[in-house]
């Protein structure tokens, strides 16, 4: 079964600091794959390298059979790989619906249409409304993003990613800053996403990780420590050392 996304020897060095060192991972189609590790392990850097926000110091990224290492961010999105951000990266002055319509128009290739009003883009509006409903944000369609409560902003963060109809969805701490009661709900939404979409997510809440992930990769200090099923990871002594050792020193 060929990987839908994989990296070969991906590295990123800042000055003398190795944020990612020789990371070679592959993700199976339809996977629910968690990326965990202590703070500073290089997980977000890895996502930034995958999506093209940062250029790698060395190594390659493959989406399906195609090498995408040199492609700019927005082209990778068009090829089917989208990410969300750990810190809300939204459009504060746009309403939820406007943000979604913007994303849907871009996806449909209608981002350059200048001769019709945005309100005439029925296809995009319908698609946007549907996704908002899917994430239970339909009542907030007319609310400005900056006036949405944090939890809903986090949902909008995911909604925007869904608007690009991704084959691979990279979620960077989707539940960051959300109390546990709500985060279970958020992950239920994620779990309801179509099976064909490959989901890779970074998370710190171990309950959520073990509940939703089918496969887990542990990163420490910029490299991959171990990878396996949730049971394997739970039982792995090195992983426990990394986390328990941390807890002891904390």
């Amino acid at each position: 079964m060929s990987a839908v996304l994989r990296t070969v020897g991906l590295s990123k060095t800042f000055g003398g600091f190795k944020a990612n060192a020789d990371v070679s991972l592959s993700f199976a189609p339809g996977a629910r794959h968690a990326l965990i590790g202590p703070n500073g392990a290089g997980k977000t850097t890895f996502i930034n390298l995958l999506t093209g926000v940062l250029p790698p110091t060395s190594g390659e990224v493959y989406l399906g059979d195609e090498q995408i290492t040199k492609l700019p961010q927005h082209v990778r999105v068009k090829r089917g790989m989208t990410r969300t951000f750990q810190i809300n990266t939204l459009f504060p002055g746009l309403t939820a619906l406007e943000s979604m319509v913007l994303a849907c128009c871009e996806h449909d290739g209608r981002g350059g249409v200048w001769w019709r009003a945005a309100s005439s883009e029925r296809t995009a509006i319908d698609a946007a409304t549907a996704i908002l409903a899917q994430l239970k944000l339909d009542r907030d369609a007319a609310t400005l993003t900056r006036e949405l409560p944090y939890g809903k902003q986090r949902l909008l963060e995911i909604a925007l990613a869904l608007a690009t109809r991704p084959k691979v969805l990279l979620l960077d701490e989707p539940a960051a800053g959300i109390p546990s009661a709500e985060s279970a709900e958020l992950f239920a939404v994620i779990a309801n996403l179509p099976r064909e979409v490959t989901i890779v997510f970074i998370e710190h809440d171990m309950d959520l990780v073990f509940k939703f992930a089918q496969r887990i990769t542990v990163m420490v200090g910029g490299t991959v420590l171990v990878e396996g099923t949730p049971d394997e990871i739970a039982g792995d002594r090195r992983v426990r050392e990394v986390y328990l050792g941390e807890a002891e020193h904390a």
Partner: protein
Amino acid sequence: MSAAGLPTQRWSKLEIAFWLIPIAAFFAFPKYLTLGSQILITALFALSLDLILGYARIISLGQAAFFGLGAYTAGLLAKYGWGEPLSGLVLGGLVASLAGLVTSFLVVRGQDLTRLMVTLGIGLMFYEAANQATSITGGVDGLSGVVMGKLFGVFSFGMDGRTAYVYSLVVLFIVFCCARTLVRSPFGLSLRGIREGEKRMPAIGASVPRKLVAVYTIGAGIAGIAGALLAQTTQFVGIDSLGFPRSADLMIMLVLGGTGYLYGGIIGAAVFMLMQDYLSNLNPVYWQFWLGLLLVIIVLFARGGLLGGLIALRQRLASRWE
């Protein structure tokens, strides 16, 4: 605006009322039509900057270069035998937008300071080039001998300024309508997206540089049309239409009226030019001083300009009457 705030194409009553004013002015102030044309042309010029500055947030200090390009194109065409106004207008706009396209690649790279320097540099380069190429442009003396043919073969550009005024008004209105449509379109929405969340744009599959290039080119083209208008209606092109003070004045007008509303540039241009006509004849040094002071005050206290202030006032009044 539709239910969820998505922009429509509907014209509000205020807007319709607004456009009746220049029409009324044509009949009410027949002796001031030349000044009126100047205001309309400057308003068009300010509109071009509003798209670039107000919507795309590109700090451009060299917009006058495109204005000048359009002016010299139309002027030279007319001087050397091609006096047909409309084609001269279109060609002026095309030449300017071509220059805008070529220079846009320099402008969309880099951060604010670099952009500022590049646009300033481009403006200064064009000025110097025009200054040196005296055989073509007339240098400091300006380009004269611009002979305009009749508009549609019927209306000649007479001393009364009537044809010039109507011509300028119609061109302004048509270009404004196009700009208005653009701003309310998906493309306009993406411009707002760049303004509100530039970092997210590539993450939803949008190429920011490409959109900025498009806006900058369009803005340059509109500035060129304005310049061509000036050349055709005054039958003269002065070199200071290219200079930095021109670009600075334009920015002041736009900020005075309010950026990002499309109407702000028009209002700002009108207010600025009326004030300038009245005050700077009194004493040019005073004019410059108060202008500088006005700018400082606007930045510190009245950032939205006239329109921003009016809109805020209206919102406050509306909420008080609820």
